[in-house]
């Protein structure tokens, strides 16, 4: 029998496969591996952000600052590379450290001042976007040879598709996320915290320390996503990634994680992100929707998949009960 706890994730997988199948059936261009590898590359930054968000949501919190963090890290990187002539690797290192530090600071405020995560990270969202404006109002290109060189790292697949550096980085970060979530003590503490934070404390989970680590980890992942986004576009833009926090939350939730915390898997988040990407791709392939119908379609499809997933879970449970 299927383990009940894996049901949502299996349902998500099924939904993804059905969608992909629909695309292949409906559009010729969809059958090329290029579409799949584009999905991996184009949604990499969203998925990376969402992996960090998964930890936060598993612990029963939320992180609204990720979108702004992406923009801030990109602008910071661009500044370091073009204004100080620093090597991109150093710049990336510094940017990641800054991301982790800001995440940890939010964690400290949440843990020690006991202020709700939603609000602290909302302030973080304003702050990081504001800091990005302060560094640079304009969009600037990052055309260091090191960065452009990354585009040449490419593993071709049969067909026109291929794994880009960005896609591979995302997959590595995904594997790392899965390991942290399921195979480390910290990961289990995250689940415990989300399941029942009061009990977790009584069971000896170091609540405050874990909270700080969670937001630092989310800071790391969103900073990483900022780096990837900067590489992806080869530029930095203070208005980049507006609203990505909501997309990331949606990806996490579509992936079967409960916003109340304690239940969910990192791999589900990957599927959730891919489903969001596929919605976008299908709409583009169709190409006949105008602006407002696009919005309706994005919302409607989101709803459809959530209901479909719920339906599958319900149906399987009922079947296995009978």
């Amino acid at each position, binding site marked *: 029998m299927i383990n009940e706890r894996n049901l949502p994730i299996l349902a998500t997988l099924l939904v993804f496969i059905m969608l992909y199948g629909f695309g292949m059936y409906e*559009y010729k*261009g*969809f059958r*090329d591996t*290029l*579409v799949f590898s*584009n999905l991996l590359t*184009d949604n990499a*930054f*969203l998925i990376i952000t969402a992996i960090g968000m998964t930890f936060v949501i598993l612990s029963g919190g939320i992180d609204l600052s990720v979108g702004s963090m992406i923009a801030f890290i990109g602008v910071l990187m661009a500044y370091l590379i073009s204004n100080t002539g620093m090597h991109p690797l150093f710049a990336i290192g510094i940017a990641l450290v800054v991301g982790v530090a800001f995440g940890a600071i939010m964690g400290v405020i949440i843990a020690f001042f006991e202020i709700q995560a939603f609000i602290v990270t909302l302030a973080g969202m304003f702050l990081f976007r504001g800091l*990005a*404006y302060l560094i640079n*109002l*304009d*969009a*600037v*290109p990052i*055309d260091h040879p090191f960065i*452009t060189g990354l*585009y040449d790292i490419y593993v071709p697949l049969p067909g*026109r598709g291929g794994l880009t550096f960005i896609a591979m980085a995302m997959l590595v970060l995904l594997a790392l996320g899965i390991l942290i979530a399921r195979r480390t003590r910290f990961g289990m503490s995250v689940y415990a915290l989300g399941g029942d934070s009061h009990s977790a404390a009584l069971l000896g989970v170091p609540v405050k320390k874990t909270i700080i680590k969670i937001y630092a980890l989310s800071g790391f992942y969103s900073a990483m996503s900022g780096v990837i*986004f900067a590489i*992806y*576009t*080869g*530029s*930095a*833009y*203070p*208005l*980049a*990634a*507006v*609203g990505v926090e909501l997309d990331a939350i949606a990806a996490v939730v579509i992936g079967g994680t409960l916003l109340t915390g304690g239940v969910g898997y990192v791999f589900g988040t990957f599927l959730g992100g891919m489903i969001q*990407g596929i919605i*976008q*791709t299908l*709409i*583009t*392939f169709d*190409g*006949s*929707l*105008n*602006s*407002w119908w*696009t*919005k309706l379609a*994005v919302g409607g499809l989101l709803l459809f998949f959530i209901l479909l997933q719920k339906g599958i879970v319900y149906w399987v449970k009922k079947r296995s009960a009978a």
Partner: protein
Amino acid sequence: ADLTIGFSQIGSESGWRTSETQSIKAEAERRGYDLKFSDAQQKQENQIKAVRSFIAQGVDGILLAPVVETGWDQVLKEAQRAKIPVVLIDRGVAADPSLYLTKVASDFKEEGSLAASWLAAKTNGRCNIVELQGSVGSSAAIDRKTGFDAVIGNFPNMTITRSQSGSFTRAGGKEVMESFLKAEGGAKNICALFAHNDDMALGAILAMKEAGVKPTKDILVVSIDAVPDIFKAMADGEANATIELNPHLGGPAFDAILASQDGKKVDKWIKANGPLYLPDTAAAEYAKRK
């Protein structure tokens, strides 16, 4: 020939943008082209995804209205590799011009300069200006401001006394104008308003009227875009000037793609700057555009 064209639009954040979309769609329909439209909802990543999807579908040409000027090199290279011509619409990109066929666009900086020149002429180079900026960080806001500032820099007695962002919206323009009027103690110290788009100007006009300030009499109003409502305001004597941002870019763009298919050389910049409109023609223009 019946072409399949992909069009990656920024979004539908303003009336002007919607007009542009409609104009291009109508033009495609007139010519019998199959237009694949994609609304990116203000997100660059969505535009990149859209262009990649167009490439995967093997369209004959791509129109791209870039949300921001940087970050297109990679995807433009991919289009070039797939031998699909890309035409930039309504603003340029900071990439090697060889990567795209042409751009059909006006120049934001020039629009700002034109507004400033008109104002300088109107006030004899002596004016305290309040400025309503567009969304913080957007290229239209940055360039219009740069163009405007460059011109008034030549006039020592023209200064911007207050400048805030009204986010390109009517409500934003109104709220910010209200606070300007409060902070400056009414219209005494303000001679003109420069708004980065018409919608903010229209909001600001409402704010002026409610504060008992007469637009055009107490404060000159100049803005950019030339949306229908601003002509009505001009006809009613509530706005002084607007600079047109031409939304009808479909024709030249499609022509460029056709030309390139025929192997003809295409200019790298097909300028589409609009003229400055004044109240004298406002009523007629309003009737035309309504």
